[in-house]
């Protein structure tokens, strides 16, 4: 395939003077699974909402290129966009319980997506709804179609959301932290469901998550975002074995699985800078364990390397010696920010 399914170049989203997403570029092929990770407030969801055209009025979207399936999303009319979203490109959200309309039955809400995009007779739509519920693993579909969201559990609701999203066989499914609001056993089931659906339908899946474990389990490629910028883009395996950006490395070392034998779970001190306290230099510099003088004065560009891209003046892999030298500094930083530890990424 010559044209990628999704081609984003220099996408920025601004809310007034606050830049929520800055010059983000992304290319995705059909059938790929991309994981987007980063702390809360790093612009992951906003990027995808911008792609879907769901950013409300004060938000401003600019991009050099925003192409999906060969269509330029920047120039098409609102009506044309509406015929794309929910059909070829659909999205599921973080809070399944509140994402479903409490006043309508599950059947109505799934059927509505079908009606708007594909039409067909009421009977055909009903049949398809039953099929979809079976596909997302809901027992007794005919009964469940008549249920209201408040009668279902969170996990059920998310399955319904997934059924709704895949109703028109989308080419791209965006899952925005699909498991954050669910308990752990259900989380695993939902991830497995998404994976198997992706495999069966050959669609592209973008998985936005906090959970590095989820990324490790299913993503082909990972984009790490921080404060609205893409800081590292790499194949999943490579990213986990040899993270190149200090932020990626810090995220990975904060995984409980990776910190066996330590007294404390390593965290990243501080929080993502808000609209008013963005540093002049590298946005991650105030929290970085490997920070150098240059970092606080200039913003590093995103630099391509052999197998991905990193936004750092001192990427870890290129400077193996330096990162070992800096071990002592890590501890120094840790002491200073002892109190803030609980706020870090966990």
């Amino acid at each position, binding site marked *: 395939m010559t044209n990628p399914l999704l081609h984003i170049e220099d996408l920025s989203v601004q809310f007034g003077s606050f830049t929520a997403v800055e010059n983000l570029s992304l290319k995705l092929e059909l059938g790929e699974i991309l994981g987007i990770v980063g702390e809360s407030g790093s612009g992951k969801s906003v990027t995808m909402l911008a792609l879907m055209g769901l950013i409300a009025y004060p938000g401003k979207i600019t991009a050099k290129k925003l192409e999906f399936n060969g269509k330029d999303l920047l120039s098409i009319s609102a009506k044309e966009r509406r*015929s794309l979203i929910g059909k070829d490109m659909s999205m599921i959200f973080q809070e399944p319980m*509140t994402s479903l*309309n409490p006043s309508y039955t599950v059947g109505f809400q799934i059927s509505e*997506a079908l009606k708007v995009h594909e039409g067909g007779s009421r009977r055909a739509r009903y049949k398809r709804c039953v099929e979809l519920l079976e596909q997302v693993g809901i027992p007794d579909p005919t009964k469940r179609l008549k249920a209201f969201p*408040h*009668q279902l559990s969170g996990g059920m609701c998310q399955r319904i959301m997934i059924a*709704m999203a895949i109703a028109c066989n989308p080419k791209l499914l965006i899952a925005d932290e699909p498991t954050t609001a669910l308990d752990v056993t259900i989380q695993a089931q939902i991830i497995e469901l998404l994976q198997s659906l992706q495999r069966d339908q050959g669609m592209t899946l973008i998985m936005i998550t906090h959970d590095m474990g989820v990324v490790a389990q299913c993503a082909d490629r990972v984009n790490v975002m921080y404060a609205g910028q893409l800081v590292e883009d790499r194949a999943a395996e490579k990213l986990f074995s040899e993270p190149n950006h200090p932020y990626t490395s810090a995220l990975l070392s904060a995984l409980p699985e990776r910190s066996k034998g330590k007294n404390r779970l390593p965290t990243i001190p501080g929080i993502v800078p808000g609209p008013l306290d963005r540093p002049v230099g590298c946005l991650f510099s105030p929290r970085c364990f490997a920070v150098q003088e240059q970092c606080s004065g200039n913003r590093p560009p995103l630099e391509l390397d052999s197998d991905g891209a990193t936004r750092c003046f001192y990427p870890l892999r290129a400077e193996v010696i330096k990162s070992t030298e800096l071990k002592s500094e890590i501890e120094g930083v840790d002491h200073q920010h002892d109190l803030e530890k609980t706020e870090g990424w966990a």
Partner: protein
Amino acid sequence: MLLYLFKRMAVFIPTFFGITLLTFAMIRLIPGDPIELMAGERGIDPERHAILRAEMGLDDPIVFQYLNYIGDVLQGDLGVSVVTKTPVLDEFLALFPATVELSFFAIIFALSIGLPLGIIAALRRGSMIDYTTMGISLTGYSMPVFWWALILMMVFSVTLGWTPVSGRISFLYYVEPVTGFLLIDTWLEGNWAAFKSALWHLVLPATALGTIPMAVIARMTRSSMLEVLGEDYIRTARAKGLSSWRVVMIHGLRNAMIPLITVIGLQVGVLLAGAILTETMFSWPGIGKWLIESVRRRDYPSLQGGVLLISAVVIIVNLIVDVLYGVFNPRIRKQ
């Protein structure tokens, strides 16, 4: 659903007794003796007075009197008007359709203007349209009904001459009351001139009466809609690729209606209170005007019965609202 209905109805039984107790006590608390009042200025000799007192049960203990009254009420006997000597219930039922007709059009006016205004204001929050509509609604809410009625009459009846000043229908027409609703009666007769006359007579009073509920509904619709439009399921609806119209009207309004229904139900009570003023201003021959006249004539049985019946109407309307609430809110229905 049926169980829900019964539960709601059960709640109204104590309310009904509370109202009978209140109206009963109110009448007893007013100074003066009903027999002397009936006798008027001529006076009455003490012997006859004592006989009448015994006959009317006024010598019985107050609790007995109350129980007797309740017993009569439950049998549909609300007493006889002191002035006209006709049963209170008959008078009420003869005049009630006029008030219902007026209130119905007032609430239609309030809904057909208030709902769209509220929705538009919510969708264009912070714009000129929002400020203008909310300004209009605040003005509407603040205007005294009798003043607003006078202004309407001045402008539309006196200056422009578009509508009749007062009354229910032109005196040229005589309509045999079948249902008591003039619009229906004239329509049944096929008397279109009379129908038109009745409709024109309704315009001003319905506008005057509906203005306050319209203002309340517009403001409540706006705030309810704003809240709903920020919900996650609205984002989901947009993400499905639905048109804005469908997102707002099907997914938004349906949920915004849940708190609104309660407000609209409460407005019916306001409407009946407003009807007393409006009917007096426009000489509208309904319950409101009748109650005012009963006060003026010290017609206690009429007053007592009238207040009780109006309370019953408000209770029934609230029962309907509760049922509608269940219809609009599936979370209530299934519990």
